[in-house]
């Protein structure tokens, strides 16, 4: 792979990766958000694959394939199922789709987009020493990874639907994995394996808890979680 094409492909994958994070904040329909998450997973796998192809490290290509399967396939599939379970209504028309929509996020969409913009700038500032350490096409894209981490964290805080929080968590995690790939072509395989397994289990746990939450609260609006407090 020539250097120019490599840099171009890497930038493209990073661009899509970052764009997906912004779109997650932009859109309210959870079904769309979950699809976007799958695209982001694919972009993450593409980043790993491009790096692997460039450095001729075939192990990285295998990792990329694994990451793709987990983050573009399995995890979105799980979320999708949790979403479908939450869909209610009989007859030809569905009346209540509030479960599938982030109707009242804690921070409204326009404001959260502005926050996302600020977070990207913050990430750019924070990542400067990281880039300065070893400026290559991959490390130059490090702010993308950090931006996605910050945006994911923000989505986690600013969203009210349980599933939207899970999506925020996964965006955060995607961002960390991307940072690992961009900074050092990924952590050692054993750690990567453990991390992926942990993430999968965490999402499974949250999936089960979502079902329990529906049973106990009749919905997944996290504003209903007011049982425990210091009063």
């Amino acid at each position, binding site marked *: 792979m020539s250097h*120019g094409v490599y840099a171009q492909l890497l930038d493209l994958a990073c661009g899509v990766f970052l764009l997906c994070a912004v779109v997650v904040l932009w859109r309210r329909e959870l079904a769309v958000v979950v699809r976007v998450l799958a695209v982001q997973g694919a972009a993450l796998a593409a980043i790993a694959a491009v790096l692997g192809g460039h450095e001729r490290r075939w192990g990285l290509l295998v990792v990329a394939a694994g990451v793709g399967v987990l983050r573009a396939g399995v995890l979105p599939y799980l979320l999708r199922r949790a979403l479908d379970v939450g869909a209610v209504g009989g007859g030809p028309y569905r009346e209540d789709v509030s479960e599938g929509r982030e109707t009242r996020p804690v921070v409204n*969409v326009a404001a959260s987009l502005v926050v996302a*913009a600020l977070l990207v700038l913050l990430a750019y500032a924070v*990542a400067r020493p990281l880039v300065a350490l070893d400026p290559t096409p991959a490390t130059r894209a490090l702010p993308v990874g950090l931006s996605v981490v910050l945006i994911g964290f923000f989505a986690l805080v600013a969203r009210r639907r349980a599933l939207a929080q899970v999506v925020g968590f996964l965006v955060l995690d995607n961002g960390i994995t991307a940072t690992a790939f961009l900074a050092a072509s990924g952590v050692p395989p054993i750690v990567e394996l453990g991390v992926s397994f942990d993430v999968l289990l965490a999402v499974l746990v949250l999936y089960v808890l979502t079902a329990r939450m529906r049973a106990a609260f009749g919905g997944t609006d996290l504003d209903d979680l007011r049982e425990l407090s210091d009063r």
Partner: protein
Amino acid sequence: MSATGYVAVAAQVAVVAGGAPLLTGWMRQVRARLEGRAGAGVVQPWRDARKLLRKEPVSPTGTGPAFRLAPLLLVAGTAVVAALVPLAATRTPVSGSADLILVVALLALGTVALALAGLDTGTAFGGMGASREMTIAALVEPTILLAVFAVSIPAGSTNLPAIVAGTIDHPARTASPAELLAVAALVVAVLAETGRIPVDNPATHLELTMVHEAMVLEYAGPDLALVELGSQMRLAVLLGLVATLAAPWGVATGGSPALLALALALLVAKVAVLGTALAAAEVFRAKVRLFKVPELLAGSFVLALLAVVGSYFLTGEAGR
């Protein structure tokens, strides 16, 4: 500066002024066909203009010069933009002044003139339309500025012909994430600026939902014809700008008349394709709630910002 340069400028303005109503007619026709209607034909906007021009000019009582001047300002400003933007040729007598900030300012001038005219009528609708238009414009103009600025970073200049010429020399730039994000942001901004769905519904007759139409509700006769022409030209110029930035191939960088002719033909083709895509997309989109418009525009603003930031922190070498 060769004579072709002058010819190019004149041709650009002529094509925009003459073709803009046809573009609108074409888009309406595409829409009608997709909806299963026969449609009024591509030249209908010209027929409308002819009809309006024959009518007696009427101004509402109590309106001042702002009302009368606004259509002229709108058309003149847009015509200047059409001359400046390197739609067909990059080397023209005015290319030195074709600064992106000037272009955006000229476009904003037209918007402000119409909004003032809307206020000048003193009617509730004019004021309502003006207030909505300014709300949208306040969000759109920075987005356009930022998006074009992002495109200008690789070129190292805010001069539009320089940007376009640079992109023609380095075609890889068009596939860089920064450029893609900028074009995406620009498209949303253009939709809002020209009052298309999902921001405004150009086909509506319902006074209370309108934005652009509410402002110009009091216009009649030749004034209305000018306003319509001005809006149509804005649409054409902005689509032309998007086409030129996203796919600059064919824009004449040299001085040959044959190349210029080819460039004009390509421009028409590119804009027609964009118009078709826009009209087709409109058929399947609905207008968002007015209060959701800022959400949409904030999104496009962030895209534009990401484009700027991206062109700094992604390698930046891709297009260089």
